[in-house]
């Protein structure tokens, strides 16, 4: 199944959402802003798909186009093989969990949850059964008759989820639903969301700017910037093999070094002369000066001059962050890099050697 970040099993899943060549602009003339610039993406059935990016990158716009709150300027949006880009929201089998939950303040919890089915004109019995089932699913049975303004943030969150899941949509859209919760509750809800997705088997499209949240929950992540999707892949691939410089920078701490690559060579030459295996992004064969990315935890400190020390430098600063230390090292070549270690016997000003991983990722700018 999709839960374990299966990356290349496309043929076992049919496509649920196909967006192709989607363009969306806001405003006119001088004030025109391009929110989505020719975006194409495929979201598979039953996967937890995350749109990740900084604010203003277009992730929420894409979500709103799928929900039907805005119409695209150009492009196609297909849901389960059907063209839906032109339909109003109430004609799309897609439901949304809003950032501020948007619970109806004049209705009880139960009526909020049953609202979608009520609007679809389902029989009362079916509505009440489905409502009960949903209340149980999000463990809110005891609060069915409450008004929504008497609920805590976490409880409102659960009601919003239950309300959006009750009509059993083909796709559930979640617009930064956890951003208003405190850290502890957010962690709980992350696990809860994964469980709900697993139990309901509904495709989740999740929007967030929090890279950790995206890595924790997603089957696949699309990293967005400035109206464009830069890279799509499972969390591990995004983290370990960022294809673009923006992706590498945006997710986690990373060192970006310049290296030289000659044509047909599988190894890059780092400043100082060390040679290392280079992982190239798909179908791209650069030569000459390139950027390579190395995670701080993939390197280690060693004695200067040791056999495995590929780089040398001076310790500039040691920053403690609880589960380890970030050691800032000024390389002999003049660059500053960060090496992460559990503990360290080195002191500021000490000369150190640095070991490298087996291979480094080459980045597209």
């Amino acid at each position: 199944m999709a839960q374990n970040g299966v990356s290349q099993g496309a043929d076992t899943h049919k496509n649920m959402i196909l967006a192709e060549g989607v363009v969306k602009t806001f405003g006119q003339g001088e004030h025109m802003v391009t929110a989505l610039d020719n975006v194409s993406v495929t979201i598979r059935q039953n996967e937890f798909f995350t749109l990740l990016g900084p604010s203003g990158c277009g992730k929420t716009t894409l979500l709103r186009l799928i929900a039907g709150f805005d119409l695209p300027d150009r492009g196609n949006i297909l849901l389960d093989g059907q063209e839906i880009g032109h339909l109003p929201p109430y004609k799309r089998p897609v439901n949304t969990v809003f950032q501020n939950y948007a619970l109806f303040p004049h209705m009880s919890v139960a009526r909020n949850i049953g609202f979608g089915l009520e609007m679809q004109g389902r029989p009362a019995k079916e509505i009440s059964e489905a409502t009960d089932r949903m209340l149980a699913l999000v463990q809110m049975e005891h609060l069915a008759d409450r008004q929504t303004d008497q609920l805590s943030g976490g409880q409102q969150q659960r009601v919003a989820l239950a309300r959006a899941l009750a009509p059993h949509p083909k796709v559930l859209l979640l617009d930064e639903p956890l951003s208003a919760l405190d850290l502890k509750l957010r962690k709980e809800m992350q696990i809860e969301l994964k469980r709900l997705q697993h139990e309901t088997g509904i495709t989740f499209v999740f929007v967030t700017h929090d890279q950790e949240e995206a890595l924790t929950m997603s089957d696949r992540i699309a990293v967005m910037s400035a109206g464009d999707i830069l890279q799509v892949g499972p969390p591990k691939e995004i983290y370990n093999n960022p294809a673009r410089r923006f992706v590498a920078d945006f997710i986690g701490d990373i060192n970006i070094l310049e290296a030289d690559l000659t044509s047909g060579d599988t190894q890059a030459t780092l400043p100082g002369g060390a040679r290392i295996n280079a992982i190239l992004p798909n179908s791209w064969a650069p030569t000459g000066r390139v950027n390579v990315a190395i995670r701080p935890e993939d390197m280690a400190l060693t004695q200067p001059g040791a056999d495995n020390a590929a780089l040398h430098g001076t310790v500039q600063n040691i920053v403690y962050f609880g589960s380890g230390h970030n050691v800032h090292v000024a390389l002999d070549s003049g660059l500053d890099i960060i090496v992460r270690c559990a503990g360290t016997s080195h002191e500021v000003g000490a000369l150190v050697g640095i070991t490298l991983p087996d291979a480094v990722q080459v980045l597209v700018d």
Partner: protein
Amino acid sequence: MAKPDTAPRSTAPRPKMKNLRKQPGFDTMAWACLVFLYAPIIVLIIFSFNDNRSVVLWTEFSFRWYTAAFENEGIRKATMVSLKVAGVATVFATIFATMAALATTRNPPFKGQALVYAIINQPLMVPEIVTAVATLAFFSIIKQLTGINGIGYLMLAHTVFCVPFAYMPIRARLEDMNLTLEQAAADLYATPVQVFRKVTLPLMAPGIVAGAMLAFVVSLDDVIITLLVGGPGETTLPIYILGQIRRGITPEINAVSTLLLVLSVVLVSLFFFLGNRKK
């Protein structure tokens, strides 16, 4: 930033610097302002319960003038006219204002929106006496052309100046209401009509009630436009009171005035607390 205790040490501590926000005499002035606003009204209310005919010296507590007011044919008739005019004006003004508020908050912005605001608020910007004579002149032409007379003209004139008063709280309410609630309803398969009935209307209801109450109070209190536009037999309560005051002060008028005052205060207080509770 600069708390008193971080102030330069060289200046001797001054005890009156305790509350830096205060300005000398301002508190006294505020309380005086309150007394100024309420004292005349309170004196009026107190003397409406005075048994004495002369309206000068307090003698004994009594409901005598209230009874007299209720039995007064002129007051009864004027009250009915007032309620009729205010009722009709309130209903139409509230409906029109609600529609206009929906158009200016629940629709994309459009060219000429500023002009629409200006037109709706026009009755607030022109001095009432000017509106009154202009309306009188216009109606006299219509009356000459059509030969139709009646209280409808007065109701129409009231509806016009009630619209902006009803519009204000309804628009404020709609602007406070988050659009995502309506989007959420549409997302949950509600058609535009259902969205309006199930979400927009129930949520804007307090604003509509507030608007209707303001319109009612404003219509009930109007003097100048009614005085000029109203024909014979279309005497509203304020016009009746004005006529009585011109003739000489009677304690009955104190009683009626008190009642009208209390009605306005109750309605406006309701409006205030309704608005506050919802925030």
